[in-house]
């Protein structure tokens, strides 16, 4: 396990004093204390989780039917949410990166808001919009009989609300970094706008898109507050892994810890996959 967690430790080292300042060995005591406390804050909970993990029974715990149910539901909802995020988020990212219009800064703020909004507030907001008495939810139920709260679709909606901004900001940065001269050249050579997008822009955008997808997916997989508020908790239908962790903690702490470990491993996996992008080069 120590091998797996190594990338989490490395960024701390990578962002420490650079080679030029190696000579200044002595840090002020206060800074040293802050460093130790800061690292401790991040590392001790991880260490605690690993120490409390019931390794011998881990396999059994994770293959319990109710655990598998939660894992399956989390996988399905986070992947569907990821598809939605790409379909809805990439056009928004393009709009923010490539066009100019009044109110663009406001639009960007709105798109990013769910990143900083407490997820439970997101859940309440979703209820007011898509709940049975919601602005859109009420007419939706009247016309089609469809309601979103307490459904798997409701989970996907909540999870997408919270995770799509991560894709938008990453892909927007990607659009900005694509050298427009390539696109201009392709257009000059007679390529249609669609061809330029498909053959030039998207391939150049691919690394950012993949990074955004990884971030959005990881966030989707971990979503708790908006989901439980908007979609409730029912095993097999709306109880994703984070909800199961919360509830298992009251029934069987070992199962909760085992599931937490799964989410931790996935999170570390995402960081490792993105290390070139976010962890300051190769490790």
């Amino acid at each position, binding site marked *: 396990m120590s091998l797996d967690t190594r990338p989490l430790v490395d960024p701390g080292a990578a962002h420490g004093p650079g080679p030029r300042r190696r000579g200044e060995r002595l840090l002020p005591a206060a800074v040293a204390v802050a460093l130790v406390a800061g690292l401790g804050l991040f590392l001790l909970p991880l260490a605690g989780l690993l120490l409390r993990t019931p390794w011998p029974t881990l396999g059994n715990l994770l293959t319990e039917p109710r655990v598998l149910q939660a894992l399956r539901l989390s996988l399905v909802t986070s992947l569907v949410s990821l598809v939605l995020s790409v379909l809805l988020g990439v056009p928004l990212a393009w709009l923010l990166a490539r066009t100019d219009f009044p109110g663009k800064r406001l639009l960007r703020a709105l798109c990013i808001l769910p990143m900083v909004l407490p*997820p439970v507030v997101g859940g309440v907001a979703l209820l007011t919009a898509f709940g049975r008495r919601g602005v859109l939810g009420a007419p939706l139920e009247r016309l089609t009989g469809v309601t979103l709260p307490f459904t798997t679709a409701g989970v996907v909606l909540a999870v997408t609300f919270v995770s799509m901004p991560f894709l938008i900001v990453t892909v927007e940065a990607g659009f900005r970094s694509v050298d427009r001269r390539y696109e201009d050249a392709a257009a000059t050579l007679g390529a249609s706008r669609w061809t330029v997008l498909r053959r030039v822009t998207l391939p150049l955008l691919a690394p950012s898109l993949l990074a955004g997808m990884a971030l959005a997916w990881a966030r989707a997989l971990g979503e*708790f507050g908006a989901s439980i508020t908007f979609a409730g908790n029912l095993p097999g239908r709306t109880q994703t892994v984070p909800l199961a962790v919360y509830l298992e903690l009251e029934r069987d702490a070992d199962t909760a810890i085992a599931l937490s470990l799964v989410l931790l491993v996935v999170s570390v996996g995402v960081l490792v996959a993105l290390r070139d992008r976010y962890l300051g080069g190769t490790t």
Partner: protein
Amino acid sequence: MRVRLVTALTVLATLLLAVACAGTTGRPEGGAADPDAADSGRADADTETTSTPLRGELLVFAAASLTDVFEELGSLLEDAHPELTVTFNLAGSQTLAGQLVEGAPADVFASASGTQMDAVAEEGLVDEPVPFATNRLAIVVEPDNPLGIRTLDDLARDDVVLVLAGEEVPAGQYAAQALEQAGVEVSPASLEVDVRAVLGKVVLGEADAAIVYESDVVVAGDTVQGIDIPDGDNVFATYPVATVTDARNPDAAAAFVDLLRSPEGTEVLERYGFGVP
């Protein structure tokens, strides 16, 4: 390139923060309800009238169904002891029991069921529990009962969106017991983490019906309609309370438990729809 790295790091930092926030959302910690924290200097003259002045903070872990009645009782105690601040950690009894077992500091634990109290008592974390209140189940529906729900049987209807508390929650245990007694098989839309979350789903209109405590119906007022469950089909809850063995404020903890069982406390409990054992 530098700008991009800064953006990327900002994104990453936000991600980490967001994940950290997500992990804590929904788990109520102490201090959620602290109406008079900044009010300790009020009415100094009163201090002399009480024989043993209580001071500092009293931290009470209480079942979610006790939210409103305990807030009133806490204010009563604070009025009698101006230097005392009563703080509540309100959640499903099973959550509170879990927190106590994990070492959360508390002075008093009031549970909606003996099961959770026993779990804590077995760990030697509380002194002798005593029953202080009783409660009974009730069905709640939307005001004016648009679906015409009358009995537990109606909760099994396909057109009724029913929400219950989870099996780990006392209210969920009691509800399951009542439904089983009545031979009713339901398919709830959601299993909530405490009884107030259950009630909230009906108040918000997301659920058509739910099983909560009679005391919750009293608190909800006009926002829902309560439907009585006859004694024969009902389940009666007994609420135990205990002082925590390692209480930081044992005097105040004992005073709070005494208040619950005093005529004054009994009057308040009854006003909020609880019975007294």
